[in-house]
């Protein structure tokens, strides 16, 4: 017997089934063998896109010691430019709004565009000061931003290697709860997902929290509207 056959046979035997034992439910997503009560909250009372949702997101992000700047829809480019102050080189993902890219240029930083067919290498990104992206969804309750590698978010490596990540979150992307975010993301479960809740951190030495280990040490969120 192959390892596969042997492991599966052992699982069936452990469950008291024969080698060809009748499955309880052959299809994931189909009926469950055990009833799963889902009495937990999906909506939390914080309406998606509301001022309250943005306030809570900001509060949670500050708690993680991320930097948060609020601005109106017309001030995004200028705010992004301010958050990039001091960065000599900035990576931008494919599909980032042109106005934001222009803002980077106006600030005097050199722009490294990550384009299909011309991807930036990890070594080049290691010499890049910052990256600007949008996001797919943000969770107010937990202070979480999710990137799904869609337009304006880039390949995962972009938001990982440069030390400063400026992330633009629109109010209409802010949901209240984790379940609300998962239900948005399940439309494209195959996309690579990065859930970000503050800058990287460790508490491995005497439980003393140190912000900034391997991921970007400097997370700056630009929260737009409402």
């Amino acid at each position: 017997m192959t390892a596969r056959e042997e492991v599966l046979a052992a699982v069936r035997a452990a469950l008291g089934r024969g080698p060809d034992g009748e499955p309880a439910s052959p299809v994931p997503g189909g009926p469950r063998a055990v009833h799963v009560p889902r009495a937990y909250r999906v909506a939390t009372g914080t309406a998606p896109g509301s001022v309250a949702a943005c306030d809570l997101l900001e509060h949670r992000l500050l708690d993680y010691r991320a930097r948060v700047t609020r601005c109106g829809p017309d001030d995004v480019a200028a705010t992004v430019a301010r958050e990039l102050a001091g960065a000599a080189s900035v990576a931008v993902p494919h599909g980032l709004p042109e106005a934001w890219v222009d803002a980077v240029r106006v600030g005097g930083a050199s722009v490294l565009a990550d384009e299909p067919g011309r991807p930036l290498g990890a070594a080049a990104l290691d010499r890049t000061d910052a990256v600007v992206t949008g996001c797919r969804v943000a969770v107010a309750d937990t202070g979480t931003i999710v990137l799904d590698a869609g337009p304006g978010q880039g390949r995962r490596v972009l938001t990982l290697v440069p030390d400063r990540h400026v992330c633009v979150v629109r109010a209409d992307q802010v949901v209240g709860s984790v379940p609300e975010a998962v239900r948005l993301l399940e439309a494209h479960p195959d996309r690579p997902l990065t859930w970000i809740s503050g800058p990287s951190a460790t508490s491995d030495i005497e439980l003393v929290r140190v912000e900034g280990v391997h991921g970007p040490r400097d997370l700056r969120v630009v929260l737009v509207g409402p």
Partner: protein
Amino acid sequence: MATPGHAPRSSPERLVSTYLGMPGVPPKPAAEPLDPLRWGPTFPEAARGTLGDAQLRTNLRRATRTIRDKRVAVTAELPDWEALRDAGAAIKADAMERLPELLEQLEVTVTARGGTVHWARDAAEANRIVTDLVRAAGAREVVKVKSMATQEIGLNEHLEAEGIAAHETDLAELIVQLAGDRPSHILVPAIHRNRDEIRDVFRTRMPDAPAGLTNEPAALAMAARAHLRALFLRADVAISGANLAIAGTGTVAVVESEGNGRMCLTLPRTLVTVMGIEKVLPDFRDLEVFLQLLPRSSTGERMNPYTTMWTGVTPGDGPQDFHLVLLDNGRTRALADEIGRQALHCIRCSACLNVCPVYERTGGHAYGSVYPGPIGAILTPQLLGLDDADEATASLPFASTLCGACYDACPVKIDIPTALVHLRDRALHDGAPRRPTAAGAAMGAAAAVLSSGPRFRWALRASALAGRVLGGRRVRRLPWPGSLWTAGRDLPALPVRSFRDAWARARRTDGRGRP
């Protein structure tokens, strides 16, 4: 994993081939474990040693209390926490019932997205598969994400024996690896080390440690960042575990804090993920439960800094060669026990360690397993099997006061106390008769006394007599066979008069005799 006698291979070209000794930082524990799942003496014997380590007890007390308080705060702020626990428990129970179908489905979905699925019956087979994959990728070194499954199978030691350097990249795991230690906690594996020891470990064993490195945690973390960044940028192969995988979509997730996970899961060309078969969940939507339960129970945060999810291979983004190794290694043995199988529901949050009065005092090394604490006490013996377990393994279900704090803390409501009692019974009655254990002898003696009225009365009088002699002092050591019992515990002070005696006396004085 570095072992005493050999320098850890932190960098092949700068390898020091002889371990010259490091008087300041001897490895903890000192003995080289043969099996990462179970090494060393029985729990009571090992605990006697660790209880004598004052530094360890101070570190543990502080760590467990801090994380405990944070966990209570962030779980209390969710009004639906109990509903989430109920959902989590049911999702896991359901997944176990449908495990064959879910595993087959996971294989289909991962393969459809360009990944390759491997099956491993045991540790040796998993290690062989991983080694072959690393060789096929032409690599002599790998970067690793913190993973309980790869610790359980001793993958680092195996790779090292095969001439492949495995670099742990989680800060605590790096400390443990460089020091030649074993992890002592699931979440914070280096909690048995203080900042001075860690500085000494880095100074002596990290070739590129900066001169004048201080003991400040921030300075130590930055030294690790610089050391590891070079490894991340050059590594061709990464090895990870998995916190969960979704059968319906083929999505695999790793939950972490430092970003070393993202580095490993993003930069190298080849990614090999070793996952216990019990980690599979049915549907993508189940993430909404576990992404709330896990971080709040584990680090006591509303959310951990980083979670990465990937589904097979994404062209142009991340590893282009992905392998998922599905590991049994005793899990089907545990699954066969209808009471014990709930140990497989564990999501490795370590909340049960932090609330356990036994763990807080003995520390993780006393359990002699990569899985310490209450969950380890029920998981380790089941993974190894109790039928022909040695005395050390069989002692683990007894490493508890049955206070029940672990059950209350568990995010998926594993009834650890019930499983402990059940496994104690199995440890004493399963398989071939083994030489008498302390507990077995004590229980046997108790049975002999309790089953006979005259013997019970005699025993009570004898103990009351002893009580008068001792005058209320605790009994630390009894003569044999009582020594089997007092080897692991004190005997409480004996009353000078038994309840039975007092009852009979009271009846005589109030004038009512036997009915």
